[in-house]
């Protein structure tokens, strides 16, 4: 085996702290991000349970919480949104999967800067601690919505959560720094540390997606970081960056926020689509249809995503000429994403499909995201948005996109890579029960919310009894249905946790490549040791050679050398 290198020897007997809490090993850091994200999801999930119970049964004490005041309602919706996006979706999709997969899939022994990697998690953990601390300060967590528009967010007399507001901004800024640090590691590793023989178009799609997402994040967060410092100064020092009284402009914050906020949704979407792109070929035993198309489309989507942001501000009083421009760009961006969905469907077509749990999640992603995407078309048109803005229609749209991203995509990835991460197989039956319970309940939550939104339900309303047009039995029935859907959804999640923990402790031992897949991580042991590979692999082909022609096996891993040339007819046998 020419040129194969062994990674440097691991320090032996490192002790518990160095192995699990102070490690620089990318796999451990990935697990730290994963478990922190899942813990934050419990908090974000509890928040939504409380406020949806308030909406279904206004004024009634909520079990496990008590009566919800208007101020608490505001804090709950703000925290739900902030936590789910920044402390669940991003750490799990980008940081956990990115950290775990990138070195393994590229045939490396670790990231290029392991200590910076460890630092990025520590900064992230600090940001999570700061955010959770905000629940316990006087007046509670920030209540100005996850979009934090000033003057509500800048002026404590308006948001009534002086300390929570400042802690929220600080937590957010720390989270941004953590992901900038992590992102630099990901991009540099993917560019410079690929296994010998791995050309750019031999890199698995999920790695491409995480790298493109990291670059998108890096390019869009800058103005918001500056803007967050300005908001912090407005809150704490009394400057007037967003205060018209001093010559500032509240719309400025909206632009700063959404210039980041729109690329941000693609920052989380692309990794989820990447996870799905890894699963579908494996369980269709078919080559990914249009690898280069997906890569070019993802890059194009990333670029276009910088030109659509003001569709969040159509009714904020922006220049209407800008509104027309942003309508056009927003409608255009739906095209590349739709194209990626078509490519996935084309991959499935004619394949030999196995409906394993990961595959079910991957298929559900495609179906549910499709619904989310098409409802976005209505919102992207400025005219229709005048009615729909700030209604539950918007909320249902972005949950039909975010839920596939942050929940479905995550479960797809966890069930798919669990054998590699933990060396055990998950239980298929529990997996399927969890899947169906989650998916059905998800639709029961949000289809009624499309209807209430179209009927005029405003967002962020604590109690509709003050709105005669909306305080009707028909709409209240829909709200209750949505809440019951949520309760069912939450009731099915313990199935996942039981499956996870039981499999971890006494699931069947997993071999290196239980799914018979091609990418490099499956050539390492399950779980991989420190250093990942006994001998760092070399790459001979792309990642999706499933059912290759003229071969016995229906897969052809990337690291397996090419066959020696066939003997010439008539010559003596070469063996």
């Amino acid at each position, binding site marked *: 085996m020419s040129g194969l*290198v062994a*990674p*440097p*020897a691991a*320090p032996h007997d490192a002790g518990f702290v160095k192995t699990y809490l102070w490690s*620089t090993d990318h796999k451990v850091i990935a697990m730290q991000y994963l478990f922190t994200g899942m813990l934050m999801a419990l908090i974000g999930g509890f928040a939504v349970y409380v406020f949806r119970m308030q909406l279904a049964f206004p004024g009634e004490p909520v079990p496990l919480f008590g009566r919800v005041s208007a101020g608490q309602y505001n804090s709950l919706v703000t925290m739900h949104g902030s936590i789910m996006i920044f402390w669940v979706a991003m750490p799990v999709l980008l940081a956990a999967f990115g950290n775990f997969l990138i*070195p393994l899939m*590229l045939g*490396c*022994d*670790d*990231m*290029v*800067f*392991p200590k910076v990697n460890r630092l990025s998690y520590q900064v992230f953990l600090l940001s999570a601690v700061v955010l959770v601390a905000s629940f316990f300060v006087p007046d509670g967590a920030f209540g100005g919505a996850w979009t934090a528009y000033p003057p509500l967010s800048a002026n404590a007399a308006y948001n009534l959560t002086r300390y929570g507001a400042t802690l929220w901004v600080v937590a957010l800024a720390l989270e941004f720094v953590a992901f*900038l640090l992590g*992102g*630099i*590691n990901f*991009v*540099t*590793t993917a*560019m*410079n*540390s*690929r296994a010998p023989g791995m050309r750019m178009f031999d890199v698995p799609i999920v790695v491409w997606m995480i790298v493109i997402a990291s670059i998108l994040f*890096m*390019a*869009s*967060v*800058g*103005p*918001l*970081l*500056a*803007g967050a*410092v*300005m908001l912090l*100064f407005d809150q704490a*020092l*009394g*400057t*007037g*960056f967003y205060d018209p009284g*001093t*010559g*500032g*402009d509240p719309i*400025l914050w909206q632009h*700063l926020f959404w*210039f980041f906020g729109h690329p941000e949704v693609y920052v989380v979407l692309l990794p989820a689509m990447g996870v799905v792109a890894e699963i579908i070929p494996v369980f269709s035993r078919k080559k990914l249809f249009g690898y280069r198309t997906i890569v070019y489309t993802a890059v194009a989507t990333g670029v276009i995503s910088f030109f659509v942001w003001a569709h969040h501000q159509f009714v904020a009083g922006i220049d209407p000429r800008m509104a027309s421009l942003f309508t056009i760009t927003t409608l255009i961006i739906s095209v590349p994403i739709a194209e990626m969905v078509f490519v996935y469907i084309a991959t499935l077509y004619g394949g030999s499909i196995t409906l394993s749990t990961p595959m079910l999640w991957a298929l559900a992603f495609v179906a549910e995201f499709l619904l989310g995407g098409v409802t976005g078309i209505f919102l992207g048109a400025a005219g229709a948005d005048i009615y729909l803005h700030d209604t539950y229609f918007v909320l249902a749209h972005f949950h039909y996109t975010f839920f596939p991203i942050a929940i479905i995509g995550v479960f797809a990835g966890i069930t798919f890579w669990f054998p590699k991460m933990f060396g055990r197989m998950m239980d298929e039956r529990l997996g399927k029960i969890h899947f169906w319970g989650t998916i059905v309940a998800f639709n029961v939550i949000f289809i009624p919310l499309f209807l209430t939104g179209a009927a005029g339900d405003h967002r962020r309303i604590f109690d509709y009894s003050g709105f005669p047009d909306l305080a009707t039995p028909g709409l209240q029935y829909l709200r209750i249905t949505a809440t019951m859907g949520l309760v069912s959804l939450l009731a099915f999640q313990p199935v996942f946790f039981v499956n996870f923990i039981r499999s971890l402790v006494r699931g069947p031992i997993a071999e290196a490549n239980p799914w018979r897949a091609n990418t490099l991580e499956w050539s390492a042991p399950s779980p991989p040791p420190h250093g990942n590979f006994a001998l*760092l692999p070399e790459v001979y082909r792309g990642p999706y050679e499933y059912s290759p022609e003229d071969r016995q096996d229906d897969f052809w891993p990337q690291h397996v050398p090419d066959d020696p040339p066939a003997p010439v007819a008539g010559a003596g046998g070469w063996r």
Partner: protein
Amino acid sequence: MTSRPIATTRSVMEVPTGRLAMWWVLASETVVFGGLLGVYVMMRLRHGAWADEAANTSTWAGAFNTLVLLTSSLSAVLAHQAAERADGPKAARLLRYTMLGGGVFLVVKAFEWTHEIREGFTITSGLFWSFYYTAAGLHAAHVLAGIIVMFIVSLTAARNEELQRVENIGIYWHFVDVVWIFLFPLLYIAK
């Protein structure tokens, strides 16, 4: 010293990993400062009266600081030259001159701000001053961070180790210099 992963030594793009990472750091810093300065420019164009406020900044302090940073960039690039010639101790010495330049910059800034605050121009005196202190303050924080990292690099460079880091911290330092090259006219000259 912990062993370095094999991954760090690979160089598929034919740019050394440390330098490649530093370019990405600059890319992300470009949008941070670009965003802040872009916002400042918009606000400045909207409020013509800010020219009167800006008249209270000291052009000479700003110009002197520009000179100091340019000179420190010179010593930084000469440090890189020394590192390329494998002369670690000389590179470390030149890095220390660069740190000194950064220190002088910060001291001048401290005097400048003290004077302005005494005159009554604080961060809440008006939106121009809010931007003035925020932008220059963010820049000064990056100068300070650069000095600290440069100090650490100079320690290993003096032992002829990790000399590639001299170039990388130099690139960061030049970036900090470039940001100031734009801050100077924006905050001091346009009056």
